[in-house]
């Protein structure tokens, strides 16, 4: 019985991470209709940044997080300018989604293999004084890094919520998504709005990467696995429903853990995928469907 509780607890921790992983992806896709298949790759990149900041300069990953966020924000802006901004000229949303999928897909090969060239495909993880230490709560062991990850995930999700619904900038994003032409007619600089949102989305990937490398590990080719998780969570939450992302992630974590008890470790990755396929077939608007931003 204790094993069950422990597995569930782990599931919640992993789930929070899944939610965090999905945030940036859902921002780009649900709100701006850009399918960034390279999202996992950016997560890995963020992880590498945290890793090297620790290895080379001894900065703890939780401390260097603001640096990573800023760096990834700038990378996101560059990425938008180079790869995504031409897509705004496309006549309809369907084409935008398909073309962004293909373009970011090409980026995966460029980025993944460049990282492999630079840093080898070796698996990297972070060792600090508190790595591997656990806290016992209610009879269950929680890893410190895992708890830190949950804290980061919740804080970031709240910040994002505040930005999107409380600030002018967030409303500009929503307006531009619903009708980019009408938004420009209101005086909103749609290109610049999207530019900054993409920066935010990639910065979010960077945060996820930092949590991944401190709680688990990264390698230059692991990106697609995280993309998979992000996709599943987004579909569970419902496209465009940013507020449901963390809860949906935690739900996925729980389901995966429950499934682990049944099928065993070697089929673990398949569980999330099967859940994904079932949801796609039966309730594609997501389990938390409550049409928020998209149209």
């Amino acid at each position, binding site marked *: 019985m204790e094993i069950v509780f422990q597995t569930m607890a782990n599931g919640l921790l992993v789930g929070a991470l899944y939610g965090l992983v999905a945030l940036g992806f859902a921002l780009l896709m649900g709100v701006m209709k850009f399918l960034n298949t390279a999202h996992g790759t950016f997560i890995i990149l963020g992880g590498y940044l945290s890793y090297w900041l620790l290895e080379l300069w001894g900065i703890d990953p939780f401390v260097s997080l603001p640096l990573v966020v800023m760096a990834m924000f700038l990378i996101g802006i560059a990425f938008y300018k180079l790869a995504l901004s031409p897509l705004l000229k496309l006549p309809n949303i369907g084409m935008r989604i398909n073309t962004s999928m293909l373009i970011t897909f090409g980026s995966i090969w460029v980025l993944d293999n460049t990282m492999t060239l630079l840093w080898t495909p070796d698996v990297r993880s972070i060792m600090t004084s508190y790595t591997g230490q656990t806290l016992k709560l209610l009879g269950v062991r929680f890893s410190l890094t895992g708890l830190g990850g949950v804290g980061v995930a919740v804080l970031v999700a709240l910040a994002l919520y505040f930005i999107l619904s409380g600030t002018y900038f967030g*409303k500009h994003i929503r*307006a531009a998504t*619903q*009708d980019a032409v009408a*938004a*420009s*007619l*209101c005086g*909103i600089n749609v290109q610049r709005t999207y530019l900054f949102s993409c920066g935010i989305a990639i910065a979010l990937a960077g945060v996820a990467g930092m949590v991944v490398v401190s709680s688990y590990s990264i390698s230059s080719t692991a990106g697609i696995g995280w993309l998979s998780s992000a996709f599943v969570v987004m579909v569970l939450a419902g496209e465009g429903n940013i507020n449901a992302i963390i809860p949906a992630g935690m739900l996925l974590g729980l389901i995966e853990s429950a499934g682990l008890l049944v099928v065993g470790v070697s089929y673990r990755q398949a569980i999330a995928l099967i859940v994904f396929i079932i949801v796609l077939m039966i309730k594609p608007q997501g389990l938390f469907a409550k049409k928020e931003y998209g149209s």
Partner: protein
Amino acid sequence: MLKIAHIDVYYGDLQALWDVSLTIGEGEIVTLVGSNGAGKSTLMNTISGLLKIRAGSIEFRGIRLDSLPAHSIVEHGISMVPEGRRIFPQMTVLENLEMGASIHAARKVRQKTLKEIYEVFPILGERAKQRAGTLSGGEQQMLAIGRALMSQPKGLLIDEMSLGLSPLVVQELSRVIQGINKANNLTIFVVEQDVPLALSMAHRGYVIENGRIIDQGDAKSLLCSARIKEAYLGAA
């Protein structure tokens, strides 16, 4: 105030406007009439910056607008109520109006402008927290006009206001527009398929056909002109 001189506009390789020139003076209501596909919306989209000209110039209060992006044109004082209204369906009425005040100058006086809009369109005040997509056609048109006014424009463009609306609503809107024009000396350029409506609202009018301006003049006299009568008013 608004000077359009000899512009050519293309959609790709297809020419839509030929050598179009017109002027609108301060405080005037000017209308452009013509049948479907004549180029009215093309002209509106060009002035507001959504389309680019290939020849000629567009000047507003002495400043060249034709190479500016759409959002900059709003900053220079021209605001458009687009064809089909194009309000933000998932945002509330209030949020839609707030979006209209996105430019810096308008943001500062946002609250005051909101009050004014609510006075002109009381129904918007009543429905402030409602999702814009749930409003009726006429209410959405009011919202679209209100949103455009939130940017404190010096020139207002209205593209096909009457489409899909009942005659009563259209009359009411027409009355409101004329009222705003008189009260604030707001320059208004209206594009319409409903020729009698347009010519009854406006001071002056232009007629466009197949991408070319074919007639212009005082609104009253246009209404009486034989050509207009024959082409658009179904006179015998």
